[in-house]
């Protein structure tokens, strides 16, 4: 049977998706509006699901289709939808306050990407040729999400950063290693969902206690107060 796409074009699609993933990470880093942040997160989830599906076609592993479906429904649709609803119910408005300006954060991001590729380069030798560079991209997206987390002030954007980190990890797991064992992935997905639900509950409590979702209210616990 002739495969409907040859190996070469499948791989280029996968590489394109990887680049897209990195681009979305940068967009998340630059975006100021909360609503757009959530949309970008959803796009990232969808990209992740697509790349998992690509790997499933490439390797012919049936279980990866389960993983791709799960990713699409959970990370691409459900979590962004819930975040969106949360945002409306909490009536959070306005821009995300950043502790650094956009330009310097982006520059820092570029440095992080270079660092990630430098770190991943010595490992590329042991990779199957197909996935050269994927590990570097996953690591870069991970570090960018981390950077986003530490430069934001609102609880919601911190959570978006957290979820973006999770996406980057999943990308690393599926694209660089061509899929973790399913049982582990299921466990990780379950944890992510529970974590998200707990955070959602938390928002309400934080808002109740501090009447704001701004995290500078959460800076009382310091040494020598």
């Amino acid at each position, binding site marked *: 049977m002739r495969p409907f796409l040859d190996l070469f074009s499948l791989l280029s699609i996968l590489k394109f998706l990887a680049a897209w993933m990195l681009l979305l990470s940068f967009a998340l880093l630059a975006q100021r509006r909360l609503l757009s942040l959530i949309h970008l997160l959803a796009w990232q989830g969808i990209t992740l699901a697509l790349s998992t599906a690509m790997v499933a076609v490439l390797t012919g592993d049936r279980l990866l289709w389960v993983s791709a479906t799960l990713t699409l429904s959970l990370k691409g649709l459900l979590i962004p939808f819930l975040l969106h609803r949360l945002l409306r119910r909490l009536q959070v408005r306005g821009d995300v306050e950043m502790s650094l300006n956009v330009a310097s954060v982006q520059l820092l991001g570029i440095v992080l990407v270079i660092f990630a590729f430098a770190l991943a380069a010595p*490992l590329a030798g042991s990779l199957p040729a197909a996935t050269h560079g994927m590990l570097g991209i996953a690591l870069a997206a991970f570090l960018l999400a*981390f950077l986003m987390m530490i430069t934001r002030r609102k609880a919601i954007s911190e959570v978006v950063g957290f979820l973006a980190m999770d996406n980057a990890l999943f990308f690393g*797991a599926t694209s660089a290693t061509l899929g973790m064992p399913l049982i*582990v992935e299921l466990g990780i997905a379950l944890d992510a969902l*529970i974590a998200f639900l707990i955070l959602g509950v*938390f928002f309400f409590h934080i808002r109740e206690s*501090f009447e704001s979702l701004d995290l500078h209210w959460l800076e*009382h*616990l310091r040494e020598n107060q």
Partner: protein
Amino acid sequence: MILLWLLVVVALGIPVLAFLGDGRRGRWIFMTINFAVFLLSLLAAWEFLRHGPLTALADELRMDALSLILVLLNGVIGLTTAWFSASYWQQEVEHHHFSKGRQRLYHAMFQSFLATMFLALLSNNMGILWVALEGATLSTVLLVSLQRSGESLEAAWKYFILCGVGLAMALFGTILLYFAAQPVLGDGAKALLWSALHQHASQLNGTVLTLAFVFVFVGYGTKVGFAPLNTWLPDAHAAGPSTVSAVLSGLLLNVALYAILRFKSLTDAASGTDFAAHLLLAFGLLSLLLAAFSMLRQHDVKRLFAYSSVEHMGLIAIAFGLGGPLAIFAGVLHMMGHSLAKSSVFFSVGRAVQEADSRELKDLRGILKLRPTLGWSLLLSILAIVGMPPGSLFLSEFLIVVASIQRAWFTTPLLLLGLGIAFAAIFPRLLHMLLGEPRTPQVLVRAGGFSPIFLQLFAVLLLGVWIPAALAGWMHNVVGILQ
């Protein structure tokens, strides 16, 4: 089979307590379940004595000497915590007017925390180990935020975000491990099984595993509370109920360190260098010293002992970093002694805090005169934690110092400095708490829950003077596993 039963019983407790875990009934169910779990862990130890390492579910679950020791510790501390919780929690409910729902949440989350601890120890799969530790974080976040006050929400949020990021790093490390294992063990679940990895460890790519270890070390190290990643630890210990502080210090920190040790033995074999040991040694010393100095300026009793946990975890890390049979033996002994002693410290302190309705050290004084039993339990448990002979912490600290002289002499002065400062930070406060001018109790507390504390202290004493032959054999086995 027994492993599966153990997990099933401990996990079945979660839904039961989620529906029935309120009031007197809830406290009794909680205690009964954990008594059953304790018996099952004893049974597992018996099976281990007869057959050696146990496996179940096609090697997905596995118990060797290292996990057995920690499983037994989990069983004991789970039981004593449930026992102590019966009277402690009743008082908390009356004081804070916790609703029935909140009581069920407390018991169910406590049980789910214990379940994830057992899963982490019994799982042979490094991915499931991660899932279990993440699950432990999620359940304890809800326990820390139980009071829903500004302080507890803040502590829980900080805990969640810091440990969440840490665990994400550990997951990346786990992915890298899988990535290194694929060429050797092939695709599929087998490539993450610790026993299989350990068997083929020398064939794994050393560079990849070293990088993986760095991620795992930083990630799980956040949970262990290595300085400078320990900022969540004092807050979470102070804000949660004392029973939660007791299991955070007594179980969670140990299990997180256990995860690092599992990775370390793989990394050592794959890379053939002492990199992992040096990392443990450096961060252990840093944690020991930073925590000891921080203890000097604490004015909150629970924060003081939270920092003391960081100090002791640093000490244990130093022991495993030094390596060699003596140091590893001492490290395992210190893990056991610290868990038992620290949870009794938190139990006693929790009682004292309830009575004074304040965590400030200046408000806690003259307890020996006011409440002799509480005074004695405070005195004995704190003496045990500062490493007074004949407690087991004295023995293990002594052995660690001896091992440091043998293997890395330059660490010895730093080690002694840290231990000395920690002692100087705790001891004067202990005298003040016990003998100072008594302060009128703010809240009338029914006495109770002292039997588990004294039982644990007895165990600490026993381990200091006589280690049962079976346990000593397992501890020697651990040396084999970790080298």
